[in-house]
């Protein structure tokens, strides 16, 4: 893009600019890490606040954070963290949003960084009722039903 090419040219041409770019980049990467994401140079250069900091020697940290928060990748990370917290608290809706199939649920949980498999969204009583019902079925049916109900 025009703006990026200009930016890179200016940074390359001016040593003070280059120094500011290095410092700003480090500052920005730390801020990104605190938000739980990694932003590469291309992503950073797109942020107006970053360009301003490097070219005009004016760092507005509030604005930088606001712009970072607006990025898709950060939004996604924030939602993941909220989901993880909700699951850890046993929130019913959060539990219901996970796949029924146990193996799929396990890999979703791992991706969120949870250490245990969230139960299929149901109470202890419901699970007990379903298990008792399973025990009345013959063996060939038990596993298929259990999978349907998210128990296995």
């Amino acid at each position, binding site marked *: 893009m025009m703006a990026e090419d200009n930016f890179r040219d200016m940074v390359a041409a001016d040593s003070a600019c280059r120094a500011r770019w290095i410092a700003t980049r480090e500052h920005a990467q730390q801020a990104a890490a605190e938000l739980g994401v990694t932003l590469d140079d291309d992503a950073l250069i797109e942020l107006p606040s970053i360009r301003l900091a490097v070219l005009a020697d004016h760092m507005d940290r509030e604005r930088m954070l606001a712009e970072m928060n607006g990025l898709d990748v950060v939004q996604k990370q924030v939602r993941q963290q909220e989901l993880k917290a909700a699951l850890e608290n046993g929130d019913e809706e959060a539990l219901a949003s996970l796949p029924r199939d*146990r*193996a799929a649920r*396990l890999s979703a949980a791992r991706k969120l960084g949870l250490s*245990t*498999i969230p*139960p299929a969204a149901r*109470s*202890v*009583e419901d*699970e*007990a009722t379903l*298990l*008792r019902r*399973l*025990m009345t079925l013959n*063996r060939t049916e*038990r*596993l298929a039903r*259990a999978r349907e109900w998210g*128990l*296995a």
Partner: protein
Amino acid sequence: MMTVCQDDLARALDLTRNTVTVRTRGLNYSPATHGARRYRLTDVLPRLRDRDRQHVPALFDLAQDDQEELFVGDDAVPRARRLELWLQGEQVERLFEARAAFTNALALSLQSSVLFEHLEGLRLKLVLTEPVLRWTVLGDADALPPFDLWAVPYAITNARYENLTEKEAA
């Protein structure tokens, strides 16, 4: 469920047909092609003498698998006990580990206690499943099931009210 025929035993253990016939006397079998009897590997192992133990891996290699990984059968508790008594050394420790891992995984997987009423029987029978059998007898770590996914299917398939004090049939 893994099965072997008398030929497999003769080959793997380097025994005569006569000896094999004696060793397998009284064991349950299912007839297969050409009338060859197929015995459950888990029934045969306790009949092996100490000098046969070195050939056990070869016997596993010859055994056939019917792909039934979970269900251990109806008369499972006495069969499992017999097999457990035959285990030696590290095999005993490995079975202990597998039982602990299974129990732990089951506890983490379920909120209610319905299946835990059957826990003792399930722990006893665990060694009869192919993955746990391979791990216990051969030390094959690759055979171990991922317990956090496997524990509930195994438990659901095999849970029943057992007579745990049942004596062996004469």
